[in-house]
């Protein structure tokens, strides 16, 4: 589904605090509470929206992360990206057109463990030709309200 203006307005109000009641949302947008409830239900069952808890990464015990870019053998990119996506520490995995074939984002509790996982498991996945690791040192923006239900 694609969001219309009403869907977007509802989501904009709920993005920083989705515990705002349907009644408050209805009042802010001058629509009925029933409409808010109906739209949320529609978006949720279409898997276009999810209400959930976003946790601060450091407080949750994750003190390191890595942006991985991989070059793969021709036609192996999907297998590699799929294998990485299965890892619980993987927050993002995608196929890429460009200098690399796969892009992934991992979070971890400490650098040594993460380095070990990348070296012993990811680098040795069948089809991986080369691997580039970038280490985040700060964040200037993160729209945690975007995601993808796959």
């Amino acid at each position, binding site marked *: 589904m694609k969001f219309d203006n009403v869907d977007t307005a509802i989501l904009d109000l709920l993005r920083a*605090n989705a515990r705002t009641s349907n009644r408050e949302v209805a009042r802010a947008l001058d629509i009925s509470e029933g409409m808010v409830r109906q739209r949320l239900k529609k978006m949720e069952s279409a898997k276009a929206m999810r209400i959930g808890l*976003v946790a601060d990464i450091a407080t949750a015990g994750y003190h390191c992360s890595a942006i991985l870019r991989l070059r793969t053998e021709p036609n192996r990119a999907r297998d590699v990206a799929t294998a990485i996506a299965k890892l619980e520490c993987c927050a993002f995995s995608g196929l890429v057109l460009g200098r690399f074939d796969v892009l992934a984002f991992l979070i971890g509790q400490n650098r040594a463990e993460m380095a070990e996982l990348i070296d012993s498991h990811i680098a040795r996945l069948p089809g991986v030709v080369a691997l580039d690791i970038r280490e985040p040192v700060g964040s200037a923006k993160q729209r945690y309200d975007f995601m993808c239900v796959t």
Partner: protein
Amino acid sequence: MASPTKTPHMLDDLDQRIISQLRTEPRATSTVLALQLHVTEATITARIRALERKGVMRISAQRDFRAAGFEVLAYVDISVAGRPVQHVAQDLAAIDNISIVTLVMGDPAIMLLAMATSLASLQDMVLGEIAKVSGVRCVETMIISEVLKYQSEFASLAEEDTHEI
């Protein structure tokens, strides 16, 4: 600007239990939570407000980027010259359809996740808005042709400005 070296907040047992409940039922009312956790409603409300204020957690309505009309995702590497990296990063963060701005070790020092409704509008963003930011020396764009997984369950909330999102 958030940095992973900041000391994380200590959470007590009740905070942990509240977070655990909210993971499964993010919109559970304070009344229900109070009953489940055997504390007063006022305690629940105060604890949740404190957790949000301290940037420990947010309850967020998250949207699928495709339903939001974005057809193209791209990762963009930015090399910086002539200005501090943090200042360039902040100017890039002000661009609307850039959803993630990450400072990384080494060079290129900034990596962005850009969202666009079409290739044409991605081009406008890269050649137009991004190129115009002072201090941007070099730009490399990688088009994400297919997303296999994209979760946003963790973020650097602790030093978030309210206008950033």
